[in-house]
């Protein structure tokens, strides 16, 4: 684990920006879901690929998970992964106002929808803070009811390291929770660092 790519100031700034971005995201997600959303303070790490699966496992625990990935592009390019513990997936239908028992396709669509909302809000919030333009590709299911360790194939990862930003969502009145992980490849870390510098300079 090394955050040497960032200076102390840059890291603090990133932490703060993410925090503000996420705060706004929490507000808009709350508006959509009609529930008060609690967000953890974002955790920021720079990890070698082989350390990413253990980092995910540490967040989620041993429960089997369903995960959705969504790419983002523009001034910042990377991927976001939203990880749900299997037991929480079933609460989504209720959360999104479906009364009836829903079929598998509808459940998956809900997962994709909620993931899209969370990713859009969080990354949109961060982009806004950085004054960056960002677009999103359609979300897709990564795995259903799988082991956390099987989510990412680190062999296929080109980047020597990645920025790993983790936020946990939970709802005040329900046991529902999920984890959002934003992953940026190494070249994008540099882009982000420049954006942070510009932000610091504008203060």
């Amino acid at each position: 684990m090394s955050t040497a790519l960032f200076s102390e100031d840059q890291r603090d700034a990133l932490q703060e920006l993410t925090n503000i971005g996420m705060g706004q995201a929490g507000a808009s997600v709350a508006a959509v879901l009609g529930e008060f959303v609690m967000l953890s303070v974002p955790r920021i790490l720079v990890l070698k690929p082989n350390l990413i699966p253990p980092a995910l496992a540490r967040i989620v625990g041993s429960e089997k998970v369903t995960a959705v990935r969504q790419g983002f592009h523009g001034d910042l390019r990377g991927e976001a992964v939203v990880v749900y513990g299997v037991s929480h997936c079933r609460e989504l239908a209720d959360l999104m106002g479906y009364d009836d028992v829903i079929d598998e396709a509808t459940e998956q669509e809900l997962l994709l929808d909620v993931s899209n909302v969370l990713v859009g809000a969080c990354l949109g919030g961060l982009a806004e803070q950085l004054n960056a333009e960002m677009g999103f590709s359609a979300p897709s299911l990564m795995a259903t009811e799988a082991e956390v360790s099987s989510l990412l194939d680190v062999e296929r990862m080109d980047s020597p390291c990645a920025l790993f930003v983790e936020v946990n969502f939970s709802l005040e009145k329900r046991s529902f929770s999920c984890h959002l992980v934003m992953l940026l490849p190494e070249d994008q870390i540099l882009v982000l660092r420049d954006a942070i510098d510009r932000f610091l300079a504008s203060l």
Partner: protein
Amino acid sequence: MTELTHSELSGFIADRVEIGVFALDADFKLTLWNRFMATHSRRSAADVLGRNLFEVFPELPRSWLERKVRHVQALRNYAFTSWTQRPYLFRFDHNRPITGGVDAMRQNCTFLPVKNEAGEVVQVCVTVQDVTDNAIAHEELAASMAEIEREKAEQRKLIGELAQAQNQLLQSEKLASIGQLAAGVAHEINNPIGFVNSNLGTLASYVDELMVVLDAYTGAHEQMPEGLRSAIDAQIKGVDLDYLREDLVNLVTESRDGLDRVKKIVQDLKDFSRMGESEAAWADLHHCLDTTLNVVANEIKYKAEVVKQYGELPEIECVASQLNQVFMNLVVNAAQAIAEQGTITVSTGTEGEQVFVAVRDTGAGIPPEVLKRIFDPFYTTKPVGTGTGLGLSVSYSIIERHGGRIVVDSKVGEGTEFKIWLPLRYPAAKAVAS
């Protein structure tokens, strides 16, 4: 020729691009409806613009779509739908009227917020992408994969069955040669038994005659001269003549008994191995059972006590050698079901027009999931190499050929009973055929 302005170019592309593009204001009124949408919905832009989306297309999933659009407005962010979860938004004809494959066009949709200068979402633009070809290819691929998986599973199962069948063939081959060997040995033993038997008969009568002669001599030597008499007395004492006379008769009697038993075993073996015989004839089932029990006595005597509860049985028309095989199978199975020591009860009787033979053991019993399959060919719970898995299925078919039925009743931990019902007459058509 005049140049197109940027705005004209954008407008042209948005209208003519081979992707559905439409836009909605905050009240779900249509503000854009491109050529793709018009063509596929058969509703022109002039017809729909300015009208509420749900009024024009009441078949749309209203509450879901409203929520989707509201999210885009509230979060000022994209939203998506994928054909894999929601096959289509608008039910459009697909581009395969001839080749077919799906009921309607498969669509991926993107909802994008249209923002004003201040960054407020004033409209929501939706693009509808025709992904029918991808969807069909994807589904064909998935079907092929499933088919391959199914075939692989099938093959694994077949390979397993093949290995088992080969095992069983070896086993039945072995049994068949043992049967032939036994019949051959029985035949060979018959000849020496014949002359030993007849010699023993002669020997017995000779012994009787000798005894008569000896009786006549007994005491006569008392009158002999002293030297001769004491020599004979010493001889008589030396051999313990009284015991010898008694034992000689016993030995001959026991030997004849022993020989009778050998003859019985040989006869049973011969009776039993008359497998080629398929002619139905009148037979006494009690005799069949006794024969079978004699043949297998050795195999079961350490495991189980056999209790016979024979009722009154008329002779029935049957193929005795085949029924022997069934009885043997049931008795051996019963013995094998008993772990330490138990009882095998063989009972017979009549019920209406049928006779029954029941073999009950005090063994382990058969669990329900096994019970369902015990008459299946090649099904066995015995370790590889010890059971053919054919015994009960062959028994079943033999009883069926006899027009009878075989049922099993088992309780785990208590024991199992096989009961066979047989008609008095062998089925006519089969009797003629055989």
